[in-house]
């Protein structure tokens, strides 16, 4: 697997994302310019320029019509993907840690930091759209749709993500908790003490019915959104910054490494700056991808499951198109179960 290095950011990466078709990669870094890349060859398509500080988060809607970025400059910007124009800007009270479009694409959530007396919140804004063109039908409202202030007794939210059908918002807290809110009203539903340290990433399965969390406590966990039941746990030996679930194959990809502030004290070999592939069901580590010389801050897999990208503290995005051995890899158990199913299918058809 030969990676494509996406060199364009001047500082450490904060997030990478694929669009729904998997042909574009959106990345943002601490250098206040977000980039869009062709997934096929890693060529840069363009940039979103306008932020004044670190862009903590970026997302693109399912139509690849608009992208949204959340920045440390107390603002959220909506961008037209095709032109790269800033379409709208929301001012926020605190830095924006995470933004994500809902699956339907007509709203997005923003995780607002809890600083300067603000308790921190998950705030949902609306993006009014035309049903046909998916273009903005009117100027978006500056006011949020609703505001989920940090629950009493919880530490502030670090990350958040939407479930299927905009139904729930799953929020990962700094204290390791995961809480669940109604996606329409923002009403608190349930919470779970999942990790012992801060949750660093929440990413849903392709269909939005279960999600994976990564945490600084070195674990990643697979959780069902309906019941908040922990399905699987993946234990590693280093703090994790990001985790994603691969479509097509039953794997998860975890990224992390030595804390950014400790990097100078360790060599890159000991820093464990590798992406780790675990089997989603068997919870076994099946492989590692080396390359970054700093911790991995974010990992994302294409919705088709044919490639993945990781963004590191080292300022590079490494894009990997999986090769044949990845697709062919199967446990004997999986092979035999598939074979049995195949044979049963033959028998029933005969």
């Amino acid at each position, binding site marked *: 697997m030969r990676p494509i290095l996406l060199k364009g950011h001047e500082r450490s990466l904060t997030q990478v994302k694929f669009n729904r078709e998997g042909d574009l990669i959106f990345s943002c870094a601490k250098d206040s310019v977000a980039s869009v890349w062709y997934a096929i060859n890693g060529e840069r398509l363009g940039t979103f320029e306008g932020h004044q500080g670190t862009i903590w988060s970026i997302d693109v809607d399912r139509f690849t019509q608009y992208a949204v970025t959340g920045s440390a400059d107390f603002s959220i910007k909506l961008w037209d993907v095709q032109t790269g124009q800033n379409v709208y800007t929301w001012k926020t009270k605190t830095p924006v840690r995470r933004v994500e479009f809902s699956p339907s694409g007509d709203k997005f959530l923003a995780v607002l930091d809890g600083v300067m007396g603000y308790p921190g919140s998950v705030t949902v804004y609306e993006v009014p759209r035309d049903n046909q063109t998916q273009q903005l039908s009117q100027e978006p409202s500056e006011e949020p749709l609703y505001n989920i202030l940090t629950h009493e007794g919880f530490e502030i939210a670090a990350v958040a993500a939407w479930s299927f059908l905009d139904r729930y918002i799953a929020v990962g807290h700094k204290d390791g908790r995961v809480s669940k809110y109604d996606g329409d009203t923002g009403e608190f539903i349930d919470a779970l003490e999942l990790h012992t340290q801060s949750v660093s990433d929440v990413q849903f399965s392709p*269909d939005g*019915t*279960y999600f994976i969390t990564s945490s600084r406590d070195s674990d990643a966990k697979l959780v069902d959104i309906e019941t908040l039941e922990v399905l699987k746990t993946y234990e590693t030996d280093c703090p994790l910054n990001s985790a994603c679930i691969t479509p097509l194959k*039953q794997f998860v990809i975890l990224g992390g490494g030595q804390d950014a502030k400790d990097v100078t004290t360790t060599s890159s070999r000991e820093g464990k700056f590798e992406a780790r592939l675990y089997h989603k*069901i068997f919870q076994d580590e099946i492989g590692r991808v080396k390359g970054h010389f700093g911790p991995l801050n974010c990992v994302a897999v294409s919705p088709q*499951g044919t490639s993945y990208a990781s963004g590191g503290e080292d300022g590079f995005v490494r894009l990997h198109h999986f090769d044949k051995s990845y697709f062919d890899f199967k446990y004997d*158990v999986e*092979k035999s*179960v598939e074979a049995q199913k195949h044979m049963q299918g033959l028998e029933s058809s005969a």
Partner: protein
Amino acid sequence: MAATSVVDIKLEDIPVDDIDFSDLEKEFQVDSEINFDNFVVVDGAPVAPESKVPMLSKVLGKLFSQAGKVVDMNLPLDEAKKCTKGYLFVEFDSAVSAKKAIKMLNGKKLDVKHRLLVNGLSDVEKFGSESFESEFSEPKLPDFQPTDYLKSWLQDEQGRDQFVLHKNDLIGVFWNRNTQQPENAVEPRSNWSNTTVKFSPKGTYLFSYHNQGVASWGGRNFERLRRYFHPQTKALDVSPTEKYLVTLSPEPISVPEDAPADFPFGPESNGHQLCVWDIATGVSVKTFALPPNQSLHWPMIKWSFDDRFCARLGPNALAVYDAENNFELLGGKIMKIENIMDFSFAPAGVKLAANRNNELSSVLAFWTPESNNQSCKATIMEVPTRRVLRTVNLVQVSDVTLIWQEQAEYLCVKVDRHTKSRKTFFTNLEICKLTEKDVPVEKVEMKDLALKFAWEPTGQRFVTISRTDAVDDNPAIPKNVITFFAPEQKDKAAKDDIKKWKACASVTGTFSNTISWSPAGRFVVVATLVTPDTRKADFNFFDLDYTGEKTDNTCDDVAAKVKAVAHPDFYGATDMSWDPSGRFLAVWSSAVKHKLENGYKVFNVTGEVVREELIENFKNFAWRPRPASLLTNAERKKVRKNLREWSAQFDESDAMQADSAMRELILLRRSLLEEWSNYREEMTEGMEEEYNYKVYDQIETSAVDEDFEVVEEIKEEILEEKEEQVDSFEEPETSD
């Protein structure tokens, strides 16, 4: 005077002692020598008029004198009718002769109407007595003894094969578990057999040799099934469908006078050495005397593929017996064939071109050498019709070998010929195509003498080992040549009848002496096994359908791609045998033959050692054969199509076998996988019900090709540009 004299005479007064009774004694003497055992009563003789009596007595006298010397013969006459009564008395010189007459002639058919009933005179009393039961009472049949299911080994879940290991006096049957320690099928038994054990051709029975004869074993635990009483049996052979057993003992059968009721042989078997048994019932169905002055070639009785006929070679004759008709000679007599040297039955039914409805014929072939005014001939004959299908005439022949292809589509007549000077020898292969009309013969001429020939069991290819008679006869120089023959195939697509065989590859300079094809075809091992002449064994594995690029073929227009794939070591090997599936080759060094490196090795088709064990005093290895597969061609094709799926399952079960930790892990993973698929299923249902939402694992939409526009950019970068002043392009000076 007379009255008084009667009264007066007193008994005491008679001087008894003085009277000479000798004349009376002589007259009424009861001959103590008379032995009723010497007499026989014969009934069922023709009723003849008085005038014909001398004639009749002459005929009968001649008949009975076959059994022994006839002392007297008495044909009583019916005075009223003036003709014989139809019975007679015969006196022999001894009881032995009388007994022989009873055995020989009782039930003898004199002609169509008359059948002699011969009984001993002393028996008449027994038969006439009241206590003699004249009613027919059915003999008591022994109760049916159910045996274990004899094919149980075929039901092994993993389809493993069994084999026999014989070390010291221990004989055990084991399950083959590839690389792992074989698993006992039964506890190894000591002294299971006097010599060795032998499986029947389809593996149902295991036979062992004992002082008293042979025993058959079978079922899950190899319990004894039957005993075949034939003392000192030295050789045994089983017919192809496992119906009959043939045993040979150097000791002629002797039937004791008072043979017990369960004695297997009748008096007619006295002196016979060869015996045919019905395997299932343990009954001796036929015995044969050995023809005198004949060298013994085992098997002495050869069977047709369906066990309907069997045949024996006799001097200048071939005796074919109909097994379904009490082993009567076919047509009532033996076939006179002058100088017949050897014969063999086709190992399978032959679908002759003339046969309708896919009928299969039993076919046999035999050959006769050159004689005064006859050329050497190989003849193919159909039985029971005795129709000659084809005769191949040959000249300048030193020896002929008949080699059938396993499907009996072809018969190779290997003809070892000599030049007129008889100095050099060479081989011609006359290949008869039995399924074609008129059985055409294709001739393959070889330049040297073929020592060994072997057909591919399932195919049309064959391998020979040949040797040129070099001037230098130093035995240390390897001179044998392995040659591969395959049907010529001009056009890959065409599947015509074979026109011609061509040598397509050869290996020279070997000591090879044995060819062993995998029962499944394709792979063949040509080996040098340790014999009195060779010291060091070696093995050459060949693949005849090699899929790689580089083959060892010398020509391309043949249906074979030969490649030597491996030549593993086992210097002491004395024997080898493929497993019935054709996946493994067992090679062993038997302590019976020599004491070097005794033990066995099992190779796979690529010549890798799967398992090896060196065992002191290891004697024998034998795979348990399997009956032919019941799968139809279509089913087989299906299996082949889904080979990947099957192999996935087998790989896993192999891994589970390998060690218990792996087994645990696999079971755990299996349950995890099932748990997950259950979770996803529940999720699918729940989501559908509650939110009308379809759960999926993967987004189907992807950037469609037509959305793309391929832009090709060529980037040229000039790294360095340099200008150099070159004086001239004069040729460099050359020094003289």
